[in-house]
């Protein structure tokens, strides 16, 4: 396992563009702290986001992981190209000839994805903890550790998403087209939702249940939007007569669906690789 990670590390670390993107990703993760600096004045009202309670434990776990998850697209570019470049440089062929098995090849990529996700999760955990300890109104241990499972959801979400990127890299073999397909797939899921809702299951929640099974939708279900949960937003909504009754937690079956997709993507990559002549 260490050998497979070393192999992938040599490939990534010698590439300047990968290094820059990976560096940019982790710098941006740190920059989440800058939300604390958002201040503006509307007439006599002085507004500072950090003082509005958005950095309160346990809410901050949800907020930060949700925001950080958007940045994953930077690593997605690295991951798609680390797979598709093996095809365009034909180095995958040479790797196999040199004695790497197809299973080891896929495993080395998947392990790298897991390592990226672990590091990213640790990063966001530390950033969140520091922000919370500075700005949170509640700092008891039990409150800090409440809802910490959002970190786990974040981790599973990253692994699932990056596995999807790996699979697209193998399937399409060209990084630009694979990334294009990723965006296209997001649109396809959107259109499917619209069509099902309007023409097939016009009543009830059937469409939502079906959409929960789609890869990108299931990944976004792991971290639901936290904004409407925020106290200030709720207060405004109450004033205009809206009430949110939304379930913000992550359920076991939501983890399960994403883990199943991850397995499909990893074994799908291996199956494609085994089936193809290089």
């Amino acid at each position: 396992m260490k050998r497979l990670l070393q192999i992938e590390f040599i490939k990534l670390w010698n590439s300047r563009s990968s290094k820059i993107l990976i560096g940019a990703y982790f710098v941006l993760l740190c920059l989440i702290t800058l939300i604390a600096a958002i201040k503006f004045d509307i007439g006599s009202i002085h507004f500072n986001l950090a003082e509005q309670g958005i950095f309160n434990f346990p809410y901050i776990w949800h907020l930060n992981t949700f925001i950080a998850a958007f940045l994953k697209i930077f690593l997605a570019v690295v991951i798609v190209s680390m797979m598709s470049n093996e095809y365009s440089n034909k180095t995958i062929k040479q790797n196999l000839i040199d004695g790497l098995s197809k299973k080891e090849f896929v495993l080395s990529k998947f392990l790298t994805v897991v390592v990226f996700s672990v590091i990213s999760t640790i990063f966001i955990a530390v950033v969140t903890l520091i922000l919370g300890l500075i700005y949170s109104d509640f700092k008891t241990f039990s409150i800090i550790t409440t809802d910490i499972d959002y970190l786990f959801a974040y981790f599973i979400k990253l692994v699932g998403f990056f596995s999807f990127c790996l699979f697209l890299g193998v399937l399409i073999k060209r990084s630009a087209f694979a990334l294009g397909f990723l965006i296209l797939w997001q649109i396809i899921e959107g259109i499917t939702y619209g069509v099902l809702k309007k023409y097939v299951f016009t009543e009830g929640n059937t469409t939502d249940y079906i959409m929960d099974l789609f890869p990108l939708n299931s990944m976004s279900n792991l971290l639901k939007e936290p904004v409407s949960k925020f106290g200030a937003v709720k207060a405004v909504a109450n004033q205009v007569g809206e009430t949110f009754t939304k379930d913000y937690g992550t359920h076991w079956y939501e983890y399960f669906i994403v883990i199943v997709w991850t397995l499909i993507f990893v074994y799908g990559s291996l199956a494609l690789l085994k089936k193809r002549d290089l």
Partner: protein
Amino acid sequence: MNTILTINNLTKKFGRLTAVNNLSFTIEKGNVYGILGPNGSGKSTTLGIVLNVVNKTSGDFQWFNGEESTNNALKKVGAIIERPNFYPYMTAAANLNLVCKIKGVPANKVEEKLRLVELWDRRDDKFKTFSLGMKQRLAIASALLNDPEILILDEPTNGLDPQGIHQIRELIKQIAQTGTTILLASHLLDEVEKVCSHVVIMRKGVKLYSGRVDEMIASFGFFELKSENQELLLTTLKENPAFGNVSHQNDYIKVILNEDVTATEMNKFLFEKGIILSHLVKRKESLEEQFLQLTANQQ
């Protein structure tokens, strides 16, 4: 037993095209083998199959008597297929370090092999800055990192300039002298003739011949003769059963031998018949002539 590779009834179909058809041969340790055939005869496909990058349709192959899985066996093999494939953004040394990791050999081999192919001075330059000849030499260095049991080269001089071709051939000879088994696929007959002791000849995916180069066609060679009186020479030769086919070729008369006849015997025989030669050469068929004869026979 020192069998390195056994191929049994190997077949590969690409749709309706049969690229390799029921191919069988064996590679023994210590010999230099050539796989010879025109472009598209299935040489590269055969190598691709035994090197784990092309899936076979039927038949099977075994490395080292089947003692190890294919990918573990490949760690004891050095191979280059077609063009040299490396990470363009990595330096020569970094690329070879990566191969060391894959093959599980210590990184101190890198210097030794880079010096062998005379690229040590360029070790810190990126692969993409190399000329084709240098890329090919780097590929050979990479294939030799594990001191392989067998070195497999597919068209190693393809696309190189004469100087590059010469360098690669010298390198191959040098490696062959160390006792490394070599399998060289090529469509260049003289290349195979210069380097190989054994040959497998393929055409359209079918094996036409496999065995020693010098036993390829059981023949006693031929004479090229010329004299003042060509007509007399021709009729004299045709009367003697020791000579097979006698024919005019340009200014010369070509005589294919049915039995062993030395040049001295030939000269003496014709002199006694009153024919004085102005030209007498005894030759064996070149590989090219044998190859053409063999492929013609099978049509």
